[in-house]
């Protein structure tokens, strides 16, 4: 087992040595360049057999154990390759949804296309719903063989480049809010779909809004039964198995050299306070790597506990904040001047951009507060507030 993993590790390394793009940050200074770089790299990984290790063995490069997936992501982080952002929703969210809940026709139609580069986005969040996902308001009205959709989605990652969308819409509004939600596969080119990129405060455009104006979706594009979309959505959301946070933690560890570079650049090598602050950061990042490792090991060994994922998320997001805040502080006035950003990256060395980007991690995907509630209530078994005035 361990032997096989080491063999895999050698294979991945030699693949990455030959194939990993060296100049991808320079080739990601605009959104268009970034998308091109992403598509190129995804294609290379598909051909190399490392793009979809979590898919079943019937797909080329699939059938890998979680332990093997971990090795692959460790090596991707170590080699400092581009993160697979553009294809993430396709290969994880869309795949898991279709694989677990889609019908045979849907699987046959869409899964192969993902490997050919068809990209998907997620139409879950809405303005006004925030962390309370079940509060969505977008309506889907059945008219013969189609659903007619009206509403608005937000925080849809890379929706402006997506071909398809995993859409949650409300087919009924009586009863508990989780009921009455239906899960649909939407063509992003369909009439009535308008996508508007969201300008982020650090200059990236990782997300978009989607406006839906009488968009028609054939009933055949529904996943699961009408009104049962909430359950399907759980499959979508559970598809990411902790690999991302491990990968990101290792990438941050690799990027500690950027902080060291600042210390040398500004001549702080003999400032004991700065050395201590750097030391604290190094230990914090090392610990987050250890935690992410342990989390995955526990999953591999089937001993994960409820709340573990929330701890990893909060620990990572705090470390990322600390990392970028120290860089911003040590960089001083230099960092206040605008410099080119790298699209889709978290540890770019553009410290203002990295600092502002770090907030996304305490807000997106369930805020820090929501994670704290999960840790307190589900892991530490502290009482939940009585129904009616509960978080």
């Amino acid at each position, binding site marked *: 087992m361990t032997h096989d993993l080491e063999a895999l590790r050698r294979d991945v390394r030699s693949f990455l040595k030959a194939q990993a793009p060296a100049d991808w940050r320079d080739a990601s200074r605009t959104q268009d360049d970034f998308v091109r770089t992403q598509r190129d790299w995804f294609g290379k990984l598909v051909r190399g057999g490392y793009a979809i290790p979590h898919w079943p063995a019937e797909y080329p490069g699939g059938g890998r154990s979680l332990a093997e997936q971990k090795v692959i992501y460790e090596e991707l982080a170590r080699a400092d390759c581009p993160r697979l952002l553009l294809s993430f929703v396709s290969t994880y969210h869309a795949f898991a949804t279709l694989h677990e809940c889609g019908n045979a026709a849907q699987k046959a139609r869409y899964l192969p296309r993902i490997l050919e580069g068809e990209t998907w986005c997620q139409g879950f*969040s809405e*303005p*006004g719903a*925030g*962390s*309370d996902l079940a*509060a969505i308001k977008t309506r889907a009205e059945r008219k013969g063989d189609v659903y007619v959709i009206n509403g608005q989605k*937000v*925080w849809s990652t890379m929706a402006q480049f997506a071909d398809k969308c995993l859409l949650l819409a409300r087919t009924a509004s009586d009863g508990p809010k989780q009921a009455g939600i239906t899960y649909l596969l939407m063509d992003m080119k369909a009439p009535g779909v308008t996508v508007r990129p*969201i*300008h*982020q*405060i650090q200059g990236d455009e990782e997300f978009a809004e989607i406006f839906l104006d009488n968009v028609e979706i054939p009933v055949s594009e529904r996943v699961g039964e009408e009104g049962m979309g909430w359950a399907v959505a759980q499959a979508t959301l559970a598809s990411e198995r902790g690999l991302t946070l491990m990968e990101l933690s290792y990438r941050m560890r690799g990027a500690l050299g950027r902080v060291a570079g600042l210390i040398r650049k500004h001549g702080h090598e003999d400032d004991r306070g700065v050395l201590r602050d750097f030391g604290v950061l190094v230990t914090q990042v090392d610990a987050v790597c250890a935690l992410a490792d342990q989390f995955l090991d526990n999953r591999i060994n089937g001993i994960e506990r409820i709340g573990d994922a929330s701890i990893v998320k909060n620990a990572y997001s705090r470390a990322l904040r600390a990392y970028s805040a120290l860089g*911003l*502080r040590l960089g*001083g*006035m230099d960092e*206040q*001047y*605008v410099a080119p950003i790298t699209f889709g990256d978290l540890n770019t060395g553009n410290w*203002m951009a990295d*600092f*502002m980007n770090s*907030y*996304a991690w*305490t*807000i*997106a995907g369930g*805020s*820090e*507060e929501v994670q*704290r509630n999960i840790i307190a209530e589900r892991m530490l078994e502290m009482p939940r507030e009585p129904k009616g*005035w*509960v*978080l």
Partner: protein
Amino acid sequence: MIERNELADAAQKAFPADTLSPARGESWQLAAEMGWLMVRLPEADGGLGLTREASTALHLEMGRILSAMPLIPAQLGLQAMAASHDFAERAEWLERLAAGEYAPLPMLEAALTPRPDGTVSGTISGVFEADMAAAIIAELPNGYALVPLDAPGVSIVERAIWDPSRRLFDVILDGYTPGRMLTDPAGTKALHDQLSGEAQLALAADCIGAASAALDMTIEYMKVRRQFDRPIALFQALKHRAADMKTKITVAEALLWKRVRDESAGVTDLAAAKVLAAEAFRFVTEEMVQLHGGIGLTDEHPCHLFLKRALLNLQLCGNADLWNERVGREALS
């Protein structure tokens, strides 16, 4: 106190809270009309002869609306001019500045090299809105000087900054021959200390005003924004964060006004007030972004304007690390 409140009221009327960063040119004209450019100029020189408390009140109000006009560097420039009694063109320039011409003091350190031929070359950084300036007042190797921007060997170049509410330039000297000296070498240190202290107070006031506005906006948002079927202002954990924001601002503001009134406070004492105010501003804006959730991360919402101004203010006229170390060192001796 009365004067301070009156100025604040007038400022709030002239610059209502709901318009952030109103157009620079119009703001400047309004400020000139209201006499703000000459607030600190002695009455003998035709100014209003008001105190540090008055200018602090104005800078605080201009912070509140993330003012785009460079009132702080302008006022520092005017004070430098007013203090330069031996400068031949003093009276003429005071009149021009009071009437609305702009001769700012830079807010960052310069890197200048004097040449044997008496010329100076290098870069003067931290000049706000230099494209509307007639001249700058800079500390050159041999003392403070008025440097007209149309003089030979002088050019300006904009340096794009993250903070969208202001614009920053470098003034490049390339074999510039200083004339128009405002100080002799003996007077330079005294003027430097005076202006440094004034700059710290002005920036601190900007921070406090902006932080207060950021808190107000955040609380309003929390009262309106609903999550899990109730306004987020009802969540105890979030309420407590608002309380901590208020506490940080109040503490920093108390120190600011105390130092403003303390004529014996040294530059380091005044810088301590700025560092505390800037750290409070930073804290408040970071919380502002968090408490606004996703929309705080989009440039359509003003959160980021506050955050970016806070982060730039932290760096102007010496950052927290520099001043905290000096505060510690002075308290040790």
